[in-house]
């Protein structure tokens, strides 16, 4: 079999991505017509909440791919080298989705409606001592500055790390050059990590998501959000590995690599559950009204089904189906589980966002699914485009050979 160095976007692939994007756009339009253009503020908030949930979720997921790369760089992991162009390509969707997400967030903050972010209502805040107290953090200026800065930094640092990786394609490097190359990578990856820990691991989920329930707080929230999106990111990478393998690319990536990706999906699903449990149990146990209020609509209210259903598919699914070694080495199971995990965590985000503006009834999820399809199409489009631009296998990366002979 001749080795194809670059991914060629097939007609089917681009057709699918366009179809999905069209579905997305149509869903947005439909949702806008039915709700977004409504006179009622709560109807409008349903429209914006859906956009918020989808754009934030998918932005964090594609950014998690870059997080994965940086972790492997810092941990000197060699095994992922043979397919590292995939997470790179996925992370190249950060700028576009970031802009979309940023625009949506700013539109919600400055749009004049307050059903999602109560703290944007300056009149109301004046009479709400708690929100007034928080206004040092929850205010439009800080929100804007920090959001724009965050997305910009993810974009720039991601781009730098990708371009470092592409610089290996020129030709073989010796040991000394290789060491320098790794050193340079380490510095940029560490920088990304610092930014990542100051954004995804702390402030960003507070600002973007937790402030929907502006009175409520949980210190775990950001790490929980991180776990959710990281495991989805791993699932997305696994999906692409399987897809490209099926198309005959990635000749040096095999079951061994898939096995390790499976382990990540398994391990971090359990990790997510651990954080889920810790947050839920502690609030349940101490039973303070100011904290339990968050779980009221989710556990006792209308979101009960969504809440526990997402726990089942995000925990029990991977736990039982991915435990066996053979399951992690099976392309079919991995595909199935990856789709399940991404859907499950998307659903988790659904129950994180919607109970805020719509406490008493679960919005019709079909619209949201349609918009999600649009984002999937967009990620496919952007990832495919980047994949087709550069070599799929970083042949001259210092750890490439280790990756080829990798076995679990």
């Amino acid at each position, binding site marked *: 079999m001749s080795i194809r160095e670059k991914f060629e976007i097939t007609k089917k692939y681009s057709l699918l991505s366009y179809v999905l994007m069209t579905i997305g756009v149509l869903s947005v339009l439909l949702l806008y017509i039915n709700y977004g253009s409504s006179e009622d503020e709560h109807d409008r908030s349903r429209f914006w909440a859906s956009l918020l949930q989808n754009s934030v979720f998918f932005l964090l997921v594609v950014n998690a791919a870059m997080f994965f790369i940086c972790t492997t760089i810092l941990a000197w992991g060699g095994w992922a080298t043979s397919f590292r162009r995939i997470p790179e390509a996925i992370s190249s969707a950060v700028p576009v989705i970031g802009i979309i997400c940023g625009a949506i967030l700013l539109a919600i903050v400055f749009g004049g409606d307050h059903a999602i972010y109560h703290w944007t209502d300056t009149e109301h805040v004046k009479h709400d001592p708690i929100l007034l107290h928080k206004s040092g953090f929850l205010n439009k200026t800080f929100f804007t500055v920090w959001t724009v800065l965050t997305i910009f930094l993810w974009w720039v640092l991601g781009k730098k790390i990708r371009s470092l990786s592409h610089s290996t394609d020129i030709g073989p490097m010796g040991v000394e050059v290789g*060491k320098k190359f790794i050193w340079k990578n380490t510095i940029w990856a560490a920088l990304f990590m610092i930014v990542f820990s100051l954004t995804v691991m702390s402030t960003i989920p507070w600002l973007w998501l937790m402030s929907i329930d502006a009175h409520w707080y949980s210190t775990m929230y950001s790490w929980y959000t991180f776990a959710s999106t990281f495991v989805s990111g791993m699932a997305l990478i696994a999906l692409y590995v399987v897809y490209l393998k099926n198309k005959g690319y990635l000749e040096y990536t095999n079951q061994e690599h898939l096995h390790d990706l499976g382990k990540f999906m398994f391990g971090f699903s359990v990790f997510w559950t651990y954080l889920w449990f810790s947050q839920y149990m502690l609030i349940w146990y*101490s039973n303070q009204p100011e904290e339990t209020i968050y779980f009221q609509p989710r556990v006792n209210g209308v979101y009960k089904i969504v809440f526990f259903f997402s726990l089942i598919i995000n925990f029990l699914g991977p736990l039982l189906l991915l435990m066996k070694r053979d399951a992690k080495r099976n392309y079919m199971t991995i595909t199935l589980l990856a789709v399940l995990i991404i859907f499950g965590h998307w659903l988790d985000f659904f129950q994180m966002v919607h109970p805020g503006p719509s406490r008493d009834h679960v919005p019709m999820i079909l619209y949201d699914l349609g918009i999600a399809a649009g984002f999937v199409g967009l990620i496919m489009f952007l990832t495919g485009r980047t994949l087709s631009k550069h070599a799929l296998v970083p042949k001259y990366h210092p750890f490439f050979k280790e990756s080829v002979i990798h076995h679990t």
Partner: protein
Amino acid sequence: MSLLRYESQVRPPLVKGNKEYHQVTEDICRPVESKPSRAWWIGFSISLAFLLFGVVSVTMEVIYGVGQWNLNKTIGWGWDITNFVWWIGIGHAGTLISAILLLFRQGWRTGVNRAAEAMTIFAVMCAGQFPIFHMGRVWDIFFSLPYPNTRGPLWVNFNSPLLWDVFAISTYFTVSLLFWYSGLLPDLASLRDRAKKKWRKLFYGITAFGWTGSTKHWQRHESLSLVLAGLSTPLVLSVHTIVSFDFATSVIPGWHTTIFPPYFVAGAIFSGFAMVQTLLVITRKVLGLEQYITIEHIEVMNKVIILTGSIVGIAYLTELFMSWYGANQYESFAFMENRLNLNSPYGWSYWIMMGCNVLSPQIFWSSKMRRNITITFFMSILVNIGMWFERFVIIVTSVYRDYLPSSWSTYYTPSIWEIGFYLGTFGLFFTCYFLFTKYFPVVALAEIKHILKRSGDGYKNKMNEIEKQGSDDFVKEHSHDHGA
């Protein structure tokens, strides 16, 4: 199946001195087979002295009751629980190295895992003493077990985090011991088969359980290690999580926060690595194992220290931020007044914690610092102090001022028996560690041999050929070794 032993030349070798298998056995068995040095005897005697002091202190407490300690009405938990959490945290690094790094396939763990696991076991032994003797009537300890008793039968309270601790720590101790010992079996067999003296043959004959090195046994052993690692990973998380639940399930300001579980785990690993550094920097020097526990190992562990230290830092800041953001006056008083305010009675302890745990490890961004043994040793002590203060801050600064200012405590200083108890656990820990270095191989023999042909410097030099080989040729030669 590929027989190719290759690793990128970019990676530094993990075993130095151009070793062959036999040489590895010789080097690692030497400290066990030769007479202990003077330094060993001195260290061992000091440890024993500390242990004896501890025994006396505990005896005082058992005879005269918890009143021998300076705990008071609101500070019901003081040094005892601080020390408990501190020791249990120390233990976590051993499991991290042996289990989690095994799953992540970090080759460098082979040099340090055996000693780190031993450290885990001894640390858990020390930790266990504190809640046990804190009970006061220690002879009633069996009350904490769920057994059909004469009181009703009234069962233990399964909803209580303190009972979860009983289960978590006993399970952790048992599983760590099993993991450690099953890994030791092949190495004990090596010692047995080399033994010249009668008592050695007897001792290692018994302890090696009749291990032969049969392929089938190795196959099961590998599978066992992997599953035990898989079990230990969530276990080690659960143990410090449950310890954190002791605090976080309550409604005490400064204790009740949802980030406690993962933050305690990160802190535990952080302090544990510091202790591993303290021990190994000395051990490698005294036992002459510098070629196995190389400067690369030290550097990598320093990287883990800065990583976990920074995670802990993020958690501190998160907590601090939420104490303000949460708009709960009691919560923010606990942080802003009892901790942050340097002029409050215990403000100093918060800043020692911040300085030692978050700020000082930042010097490890520089690789020169990471590779400096003296700095490493100094830093490891500093981090241990810092992590002790973290627990002290969490416990004491949250409880010394009750909701009612009328029940604010007077300043709490430990009594001599409290200090003696703590020093005594050091005695216990180091006595065990000294005995371990004398009678057991400090470095995992079989595991070093396993990575020798990939990471030994002599073998790495021979890999130059492969390193120079073009990627395409390399792939042609070796990639067909794989399935799929």
